């Protein structure tokens, strides 16, 4: 029986990964029980950074405020200003353009002065296969269903591989590589 896998992938460049890191668009929304209680839904699409330096997945205070989230706990955090206290919330979120959906996921509040409103931390990454492929022209994240805890749900349909075929590493064989480059140039000329 095939293992259900949730995947996110997109094309990127070496320069983008170098300058900005692995950024993705994420839609954050209210947990189902909160939606029922409030009788309405709230959601917001934001930029997230996949961040191995963050223990937990974090959202900015601005996003928490916009969604009107109510804290479920206060935890000690270690950030740029040393040890402090941060609110924890529960949210649902999806990676835009993928079948990765995490429900009732605990997130920690962080303050940011940049345009990054979310950090995908090691709580998610520890369940995932993460591809940081600047020279391959792609980045991606794959969460195998076998390890997914009950608060994660994902579709089970077959999806393209994490690394798009056209972005895979060139062959080591010089002749083959030149041939591939020649073909690529020809394709580009045709497009023009």
């Amino acid at each position, binding site marked *: 029986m095939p293992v259900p896998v949730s995947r996110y992938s997109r094309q990127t460049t070496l320069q983008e990964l170098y300058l900005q890191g692995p950024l993705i668009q994420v839609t954050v929304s209210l947990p189902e029980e909160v939606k029922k209680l409030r009788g309405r839904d709230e959601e917001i699409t934001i930029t997230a*950074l996949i961040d191995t330096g963050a223990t937990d997945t974090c959202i900015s205070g601005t996003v928490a405020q916009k969604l009107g989230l109510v804290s479920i706990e206060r935890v000690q955090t270690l950030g740029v200003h040393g040890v402090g206290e941060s609110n924890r919330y529960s949210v649902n979120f999806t990676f835009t353009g993928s079948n990765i959906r995490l429900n009732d996921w605990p997130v920690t509040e962080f303050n940011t002065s940049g345009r990054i409103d979310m950090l995908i931390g090691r709580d998610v990454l520890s369940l995932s296969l993460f591809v940081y492929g600047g020279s391959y022209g792609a980045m991606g994240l794959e969460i195998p269903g076998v390890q997914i805890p*009950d608060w994660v749900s994902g579709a089970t349909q077959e999806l393209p591989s994490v690394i798009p075929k056209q972005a895979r590493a060139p062959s080591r064989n010089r002749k083959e590589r030149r041939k591939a480059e020649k073909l690529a140039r020809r394709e580009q000329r045709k497009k023009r």
Partner: protein
Amino acid sequence: MTPEDYIDIANQWFSDHLPELLQTHRGKWIVIFGNESIGVFDSFSEAYRNGIKTAKSEKIVVREIREEPEKPREISINATLGIIDAGPSISL
């Protein structure tokens, strides 16, 4: 109750009952509403869902039953400072 009050009250209840909770429910998740426990559950999501449903309020506290204090959670220093955005902007 101010937003902080309900967390302080729940945390006090949690600290008071932690020794007995560790003996019987170590590693599980507890939901506290005001000055009482709503229940103990196997996972965070189960605790959260049941907590909201039972309390009919978002002002619940969900805690993992384990010893305190735990190690502070790390938050990315670069993202906090906005250093990641220092380079030329690249749209997604």
